[in-house]
């Protein structure tokens, strides 16, 4: 338990525009347990909070859930730490003042920290984190880092692979001095990253795999130097083999990581051809430029076809490998491939905002998922290396002092224990599985924003669907209408022309002048058209605001100057996939609900045809309340909507899913963005697979250590004997297997 010290925090609040906001923010801050005093200043936008032991994260969360925002900054660090060391770094961040939140990615060795810039800056933060934390700049991407790591490993492996055979040959020929000379580059160049890693870990008062490898190889190498002078058997060969074998495994692992983590980047175009044939960097493209794409080439920028036509393979975004014909006026996305034809593309988005860049950014955040089982793994990782070192010491004591073996043989058992133990596989087990599944989802058109959604989505027992645009096509048509005032429909069309609601598009365009316009989400609109007050919307809304003295009703009512203007019936088609997807969900015993703002009889009809429960006439806020209520009844609720109008309900749900074909991804709320309803079933199977892979990986990681460590310690000796170098080989491949198994799609 930490001390209860009074602390003061300063936050910059965003979005306060009236005095009541101050009250709301103050109230929200004070509602956090442990806050003693909160003062909010409207003019400066600063909040001063006095508290004991309150986490900054909770303060920020309180302000955000009250509808305001807190100014924070984010920075990503590359840290020199193995996956199993991340729990310690996270612990450090937990205790650090000014840290709001963090997302770590042990598989890639990065950690992204959200912090309060009024309290701490990126440089100080890096120092506090330790482990050589380096902020990643714009010109140095994650991929560069992963590739750099791979290349560094490869260089060290090549040196090891060149010298180690000589070390072994001279050992066999009983030429220990030559053996030693040839082992120096392996021990002190190839092995350097482990000695350095061990040094950094120990300096940061922690332990990791590097400590084990460095300890095992150094014990053998330095004792061999001593044995050389004493004319005893030397183990330069074992030490060199140990390092080389570990490097083989780690290089394979780094290669897999580099491949997996740069999967999207590899599709990102780097060069674009301008109309005059000049090749330029895509980053220099501006909106309005024309780029030329020839048959077989990648499309270099997001834009619209200006001239030419051709078939484009968009499988990277849709999972659909049949090429789509693109002609003048059709949108194209950077990263898709022109299979045949010729296109001139009018650039509509700079490369850093291209769709593929957006996907890359979101997916990268998803990589840093923290699954619930991770806390158990963290606890084990923390004590793993100290326990192994203890076991190694005990092994030596038992063999030498109890069983009476020579110190050299006893040392070999002891070193084998150090070399066999593999904490890395534990650290890699869940990040690798999540990484691979997130990528696989992207390939099938599903964009995962929170990697832990896999774990949550499996538990969902209730799915609430929005109707319009989610279960139905969302392209409305006017079925029929009746005017009570002549020209009413013209006025209504003009009013609707100002609205973004999908129904608005059902109306013809109108040139009448609209002088004022108000939209009431989930209810209707008000506009002044040519001097007439026009109110259009759902029945209850219009009737409450109008002297509605006729006995007829429709899907949409219109009131002109306080009197009935028109009734309009609207139709919308149910998506073909909806029937199949809902029947599949029901087979899985998932409760399916439709929640819609539509209050017309059409809503009931859609519900009836799909065979699902209907809640109709709901405002966006009602949908949030519905989700809250279902949650309080103990249901695990997923909300599936368009991601904009339902943003709040999506955020409130246990799992939020946005269905959209749009390409401005940041606009949509939700843990996941899908393109069509069938993706829900794919997400479900991906979720099951992800969780199974995590469990299997962890099972392997635990099982491997449980079996190999005792064997290395010699419990089966003399039947089975595991020399240190082969123990190291097994160790290295234990984490390779975790990486490979994550990739296997079964």
């Amino acid at each position, binding site marked *: 338990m930490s001390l209860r010290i009074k602390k003061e925090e300063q936050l910059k609040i965003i979005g306060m525009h009236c005095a*009541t906001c101050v*009250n709301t923010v103050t109230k929200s801050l004070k509602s956090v347990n442990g806050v003693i005093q909160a003062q909010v200043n409207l003019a400066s936008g600063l909040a001063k909070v006095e508290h004991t032991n309150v986490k900054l994260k909770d303060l920020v969360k309180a302000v955000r859930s009250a509808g305001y925002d807190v100014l924070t900054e984010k920075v990503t660090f590359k840290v020199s730490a193995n996956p199993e060391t991340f729990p310690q770094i996270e612990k450090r961040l937990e205790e650090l003042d000014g840290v709001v939140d963090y997302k770590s990615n042990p598989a890639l060795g990065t950690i992204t920290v959200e912090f309060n810039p009024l309290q701490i800056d990126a440089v100080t933060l890096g120092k506090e984190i330790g482990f050589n934390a380096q902020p990643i700049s714009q010109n140095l991407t994650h991929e560069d880092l992963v590739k750099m790591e791979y290349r560094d490993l490869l260089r060290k492996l090549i040196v090891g692979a060149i010298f180690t055979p000589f070390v072994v040959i001279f050992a066999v020929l009983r030429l220990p001095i030559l053996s030693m000379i040839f082992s120096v580059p392996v021990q002190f160049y190839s092995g350097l990253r482990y000695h350095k890693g061990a040094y950094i870990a120990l300096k940061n008062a922690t332990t990791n795999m590097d400590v084990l490898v460095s300890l095992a190889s150094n014990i053998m190498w330095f004792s061999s130097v001593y044995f050389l002078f004493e004319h005893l058997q030397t183990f330069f060969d074992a030490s060199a083999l140990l390092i080389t074998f570990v490097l083989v495994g780690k290089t394979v692992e780094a290669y897999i990581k580099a491949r997996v983590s740069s999967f999207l980047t590899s599709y990102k175009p780097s060069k674009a051809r301008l109309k005059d044939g000049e090749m330029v960097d895509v980053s220099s493209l501006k909106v309005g430029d024309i780029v030329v794409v020839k048959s077989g080439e990648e499309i270099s920028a997001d834009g619209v076809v200006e001239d030419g036509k051709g078939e484009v393979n968009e499988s990277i975004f849709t999972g659909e490998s049949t090429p789509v014909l693109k002609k003048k006026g059709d949108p194209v996305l950077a990263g898709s491939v022109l299979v045949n034809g010729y296109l001139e593309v009018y650039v509509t988005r700079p490369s850093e905002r291209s769709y593929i860049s957006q996907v890359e950014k979101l997916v990268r955040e998803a990589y840093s998922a923290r699954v619930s089982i991770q806390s158990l793994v963290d606890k084990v990782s923390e004590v793993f290396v100290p326990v192994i070192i203890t076991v190694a010491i005990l092994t030596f004591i038992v063999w030498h002092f109890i069983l009476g073996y020579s110190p050299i043989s006893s040392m070999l058992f002891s070193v084998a224990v150090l070399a066999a133990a593999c904490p890395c596989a534990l650290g890699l087990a869940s990040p690798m599985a999540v990484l691979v599944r997130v990528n696989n989802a992207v390939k099938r058109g599903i964009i995962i924003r929170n990697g832990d959604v896999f774990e949550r989505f499996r538990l969902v027992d209730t799915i609430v669907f929005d109707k319009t645009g989610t279960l139905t096509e969302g392209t409305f048509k006017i079925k029929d209408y009746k005017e009570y005032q002549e020209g009413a429909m013209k006025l209504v069309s003009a009013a609707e022309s100002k609205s973004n609601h999908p129904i608005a598009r059902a109306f013809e365009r109108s040139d009448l002048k609209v002088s004022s316009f108000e939209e009431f989400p989930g209810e209707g609109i*008000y506009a002044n058209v040519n001097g007439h007050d026009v*109110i259009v919307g759902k029945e209850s*809304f219009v009737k409450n*605001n109008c002297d509605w003295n006729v006995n007829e009703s429709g899907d949409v009512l219109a009131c002109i100057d306080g009197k009935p203007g028109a009734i309009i019936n609207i139709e919308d088609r149910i998506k073909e996939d909806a029937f199949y997807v809902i029947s599949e969900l029901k087979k899985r015993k998932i409760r399916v609900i439709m929640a819609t703002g539509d209050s017309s009889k059409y809503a009931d009809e859609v519900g009836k045809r799909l065979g699902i429960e209907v809640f109709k006439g709901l405002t966006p*806020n009602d949908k949030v309340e519905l989700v809250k209520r279902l949650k309080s009844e103990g249901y695990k609720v997923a909300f599936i909507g368009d991601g904009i109008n339902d943003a709040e309900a999506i955020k409130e749900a246990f799992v939020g899913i946005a269905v959209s074909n749009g390409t401005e991804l940041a606009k949509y709320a939700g843990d996941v963005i899908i393109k069509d309803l069938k993706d829900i079933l794919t997400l479900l199977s991906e979720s099951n697979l992800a969780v199974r892979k995590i469990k299997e990986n962890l099972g392997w990681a635990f099982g491997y250590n449980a079996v190999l460590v005792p064997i290395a310690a010699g419990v089966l000796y003399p039947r089975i004997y595991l020399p240190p170098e082969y123990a190291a080989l097994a160790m290295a491949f234990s984490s390779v297997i975790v990486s490979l198994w994550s990739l296997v799609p079964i």
Partner: protein
Amino acid sequence: MKYIDPVCGMEVDENTQYKVMYKGKVYRFCSQQCMDAFRKDPELYLREGPKGMPK
């Protein structure tokens, strides 16, 4: 143009997302709480004037 929140009496910006149409007239609010209070009993506030922030 400035508007007055009929529930708490504060000045509200024209572009607020919190608004309600009641009997053909638009009312603007400073917060979700005020808007919800108004929806519950609009007549109370129109008859008796602003009552301060709802609890």
